[in-house]
C-alpha cells in the first residue's frame, strides 16, 4: 500500500470513528450536563485569563478549609483575571455580593467535585468497582491509576505500594465475575489479563534523582519486585507509567532489570510507556526493542505510545537551565513523530516480536492512522490496542468499541486532594490551544482534524 492509499484509509477510519462519537451532536456530548460543560470549555478556551483563574481555583480547592476560604480564593482569582476578562469581572461581581457568597462557594465547591468525578472514578478500586464493571460490559477494558500526593518520604512510598497491592487484589476479585469478552481478553500472542494496574515509580520512593538514577534502583527495587510478584501470582498486568524526563532513566533501567529476572520469565504481563514528544524517543524505542529481542519472556511486553503529559514542565525546566528543550516544540512535528513511532511499533509486531503496541491518544487522526497502518500490514484487528483517559476520552472509547477494536480506559482513582494535580493537568490539556480535543470541542471541521500532520 502506498502513501496516498494509506492516507485514504486513515481518512476512512477517522470518519468512521468520528461517526461513532455519538449522535446528538458532532462532538458526541449527549446529555445536558455535558452540553453545559462543553459550553464552559469553549468559553475557557476563548478566555485564557478566566481559564487561569478557574484552574487556580480548582488547584487550591482542597486546601481551603472553610467556605469563607473558598470564597476568598475564588474572588481573588477572578478579581485578578478581571483586568483582562469581562467574564471574570462578571463572575467576580457575583461572588463579591455579600448575600451570595455562601451559595456561590457551595456551587463552586460542588462544581469542582463533580468535574473531578468525571476524571476520577472513585476513592479506590472498591468504590470504582461498579464503574469498572460497567465499562467492561460496554466492551471496554481498563487500567487503574492510583492518584496521590507526591511521595517525599519513605512512609508515603510504603503507603503507595500498599495501595497498589490492595488494588491488584481488588481488581483480581472483581474482574473474576466479568463476562468473557474475546476481543478484550485475547490476541494472537495469547491471553490478556483483565486486571491491569498502572504504577508510578516516583510514588514508590522518595529517592528518584535526575542526576543519580542508580539511587532509585535500590530504593524502589523491593517495592516494585513485590508488585511484580503479586501481579504474576494473580495473573494481572503491571504497567509502569512514564513521567518527566528526569526520571526516565531510573524507571526504565529498574523495570527492565527486574523483568529480566528468572522468576519473571513467564509472567507477569508487563509494559512501559514511550513518550513521542521527546525528540530522542526513537532511540528510547530502539533501546526497548533491543532489550525485548535479547530477553524473550513468556509473557508479551506492552509498549504504550503517548505524546507525553509533561510538555510545559519540560519546556520550562529546559528554558530555566538554558538547555535545548527535550521535546518537540511544534505540534505537527510531535504528531508526525507519533505516527512514525506507531509504524515502528506495528512493524516490530508484524515482524514477530512478542510486543503489544498500545496507542494511547484522544486524537482521532493519531488513532485512525494506527488502525489504518495496522490493517495495511495485515495484522489482525486484535493485535492493536487503543487507549484513552477516563473523562477525556469517554466518547472516543465508545467510538473505538463501536468500530470493533480493543480499547482500554485509563481510570484514575483517589481522593479529591490527591486528584487535584491530575485534574488540573487534564483540564489544561483539554482547553489548551494545542489540543486536539479543544479543536474538536470548538467544532473544527473533521476533515481538517484528520489532515496529515
Amino acid at each position: 500500500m502506498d502513501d496516498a492509499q494509506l492516507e485514504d484509509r486513515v481518512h476512512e477510519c477517522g470518519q468512521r470513528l468520528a461517526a461513532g462519537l455519538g449522535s446528538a451532536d458532532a462532538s458526541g456530548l449527549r446529555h445536558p450536563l455535558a452540553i453545559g460543560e462543553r459550553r464552559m470549555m469553549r468559553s475557557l478556551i476563548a478566555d485564557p485569563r478566566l481559564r487561569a483563574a478557574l484552574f487556580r481555583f480548582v488547584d487550591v480547592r482542597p486546601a481551603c478549609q472553610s467556605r469563607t476560604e473558598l470564597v476568598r480564593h475564588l474572588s481573588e482569582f477572578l478579581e485578578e483575571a478581571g483586568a483582562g476578562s469581562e467574564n471574570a469581572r462578571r463572575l467576580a461581581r457575583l461572588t463579591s455580593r455579600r448575600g451570595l457568597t455562601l451559595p456561590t462557594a457551595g456551587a463552586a465547591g460542588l462544581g469542582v467535585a463533580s468535574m473531578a468525578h468525571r476524571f476520577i472514578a472513585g476513592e479506590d478500586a472498591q468504590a470504582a468497582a461498579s464503574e469498572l464493571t460497567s465499562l467492561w460490559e460496554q466492551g471496554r477494558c481498563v487500567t487503574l491509576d492510583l492518584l496521590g500526593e507526591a511521595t517525599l518520604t519513605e512512609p508515603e512510598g510504603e503507603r503507595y505500594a500498599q495501595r497498589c497491592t490492595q488494588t491488584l487484589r481488588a481488581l483480581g476479585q472483581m474482574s473474576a465475575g466479568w463476562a468473557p469478552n474475546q476481543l478484550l481478553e485475547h490476541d494472537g500472542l495469547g491471553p490478556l489479563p483483565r486486571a491491569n494496574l498502572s504504577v508510578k515509580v516516583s510514588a514508590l520512593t522518595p529517592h528518584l534523582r535526575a542526576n543519580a538514577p542508580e539511587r532509585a534502583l535500590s530504593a524502589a527495587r523491593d517495592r516494585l519486585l513485590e508488585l511484580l510478584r503479586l501481579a504474576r501470582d494473580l495473573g494481572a498486568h503491571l504497567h509502569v507509567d512514564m513521567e518527566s524526563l528526569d526520571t526516565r532513566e531510573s524507571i526504565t533501567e529498574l523495570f527492565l532489570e527486574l523483568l529480566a529476572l528468572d522468576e519473571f520469565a513467564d509472567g507477569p504481563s508487563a509494559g512501559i510507556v514511550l513518550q513521542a514528544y521527546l525528540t530522542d524517543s526513537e532511540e528510547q524505542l530502539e533501546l526497548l526493542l533491543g532489550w525485548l529481542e535479547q530477553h524473550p519472556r513468556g509473557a508479551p511486553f506492552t509498549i504504550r505510545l503517548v505524546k507525553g503529559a509533561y510538555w510545559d514542565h519540560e519546556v520550562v525546566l529546559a528554558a530555566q537551565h538554558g538547555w535545548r528543550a527535550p521535546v518537540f516544540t511544534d505540534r505537527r512535528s510531535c504528531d508526525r513523530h507519533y505516527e512514525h513511532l506507531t509504524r515502528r511499533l506495528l512493524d516490530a509486531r508484524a515482524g514477530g516480536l512478542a510486543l503489544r503496541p498500545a496507542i494511547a491518544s484522544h486524537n482521532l487522526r493519531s488513532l485512525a492512522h494506527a488502525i489504518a497502518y495496522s490493517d495495511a500490514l495485515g495484522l489482525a484487528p486484535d493485535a492493536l490496542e487503543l487507549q484513552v483517559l477516563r473523562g477525556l476520552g469517554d466518547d472516543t472509547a465508545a467510538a473505538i468499541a463501536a468500530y470493533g477494536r480493543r480499547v482500554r480506559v485509563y481510570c484514575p482513582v483517589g481522593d479529591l486532594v490527591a486528584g487535584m494535580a491530575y485534574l488540573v493537568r487534564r483540564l489544561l490539556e483539554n482547553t489548551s490551544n494545542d489540543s486536539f480535543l479543544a479543536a474538536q470541542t470548538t467544532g473544527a471541521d473533521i476533515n481538517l482534524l484528520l489532515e496529515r500532520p
Partner: protein
Amino acid sequence: MSTENTFRNEPALEFRREPVRAQALRALAELRTKLPLRIGAANGAAAGGELLSYNPANPAELIAVAPAGTAADARAALVRADSAFESWSALDAGTRAATLQRAAGLLRERRLELTALEVLEAGKPWPEADADVCEAIDFLEYYALGALALDRGRLLPQLPGERNTLRYYPRGPHAVIAPWNFPMAIPAGMVSAALVTGNTVVFKPAEQTPACGHALVQALHSAGVPEDALVLLTGADEPARELVAHPLVHGIAFTGSCAAGQHIIHAAAQAQPGQRHVKRVIAEMGGKNCIIVDADADLDDAVPAIIKSAFGFAGQKCSAAARVLVCEQIADALNERLAGAIRALRVGPAEDFASDLATVIDAEALARINAFLDGAEHEPRVQADIPVGTGGHYVPPTLFVDLPPSSRIVREEVFGPVLSCERVASVEAAVRIVREGDFGLTGGLFSRSPQTIEYVSRLGIVGNLYVNREITGAMVGRHPFGGGRLSGTGPKAGGPDYLLTFVEARSVSENTVRHGLVI
C-alpha cells in the same frame, strides 16, 4: 542600563544525561592526577609560609598549596595595583569589557575542570559547583555589558547656552575579600565589577579555596588584564586586615560573615595618614532566612523547596533557609512530611552524584555547627544519617520543631544544615517575626492566594523574596541579589545598579554662549 535585553545566563550542565556525568567524572579523575595544585608566589616571596587546602570529604587529600600572604605581601600587592591604575583606568570601556568577555570564554572552555575543582576544594556537590562556575561566567558577561551602558553616561536636563554631561570614573585600587562558599562566582562578581569600571584590584580568596580563586585570576590575566591590575593575594586574616586598613585602598568589596563585615566597615571608616579619600565598603553578610508557609500552600511543592533551600550545599549559603514559619492549620502535616523528607536525604561526598548534600567546609565549621546541635536543649530533632569513619566533615541535616524563640538555633545564623520550624497564627504574624530579625537577605512565601502574595511582596521585608519556589540559586540579571538590615550594605549583585558603587560620577556644565550667541 539595557543589559537585560541582551544578557542570557550561561546554560547549566545537563547532568541528568549520563554522558555528561561521565564527562564530569573523567574531568575529576584527570584533575586528581595533577594534585596538589601549586599556586605561584605571585604576591611576592612566601615569607608567611604555605597555605594548604584540603578536600572536605577527605581531609587527607591535599588540593592546593599557596603562599600564606602576610601584611607585607598585602602592602606590596597594593603598591602594584596602585601603579597599574593609571594605565588600566585610561583604557576605554569597550576594551575592558571585551577583556571580561574573553575571560568568560576561557572559563567556559574549562567548565568541567573548574567544576571538578570546586567539588574537591569546596566540597560543593556537582550541580551547585556547576552553577557557581556558570554564575562566574554570568557576572563577567553581565558586568561587561553593564560597563558599556554606564560608559554612555546619563542624560541631564539641557538649557539653551548650557551643555551638561554626567560621566562615571573609576576610583582606584580595590580590595576584594571573598568567601569560600561560592568560590568562583562571588569573587568573579566583585573582581570583575571593580575591573571593568576601570579600578585595579587586589583579590584575596578565602583561605579554604585558594585554587578556585587562582583559576579566576588566571582566566582574567590570560584574557588580557595586566598582572598588576589584578593581584592575587592568598592567605588568611592578616593580609585581609592590612588591605582594609591601607590608605591606598579606595573601595572594599567583601562577602562573608556579619562580624567580619562590621569589622571591615568600622576599620575602613578610619582615615589613615595620607589618605585623601573616603573608602567605600560593599559588604554582603549573613542571613537568617525564613520561609513562610500559608495555610493554603501546596505541601507537595513546599516540602521539596524547603529541603533544597535549607540543605543544599549543607546550608552553607547566605541565602539558605534557616527557619520555616508555618500557619498552624497545616503545621503538623508539614512537620511530618519535612521530617520524612529529611530522613530520605543522602549525605555523602560531593563528588558522588547520588549525594543530596555533602560536607561542611572544614573542621572548624564542623565544631561550630556541632556546638549548636549539642547546645540545643529542645527536642525532638530529626536527622539523616551521615557517613562514618571517613574523616569527612559531615554534619547530619537536622530539623528542630517548635523551639522556644529564645533558642540560639532560632536566633543565630548557623550556616550549616540546620532548620527550625515554628508555628504561627497567620501570615501577618510570620511577617512580624521576619521583621524583628537582625537580617533581611532572602525569604520565601508559599501561598496560593494572590492577595497574600501581593501583601507580602509589597512589604519589602527582605532583599530577595521568593514566592512558591526555593529561596536559593539567584540568577545573575534575573534575580539581583542582596539584602538589607545586617545582611549587607547593598547594592544588588547581578543587578543594574551594582557597578555604580565602583565609580564616581562627575558632571560638567559648559557655557556655550559666546558674544551673546548660543553656539
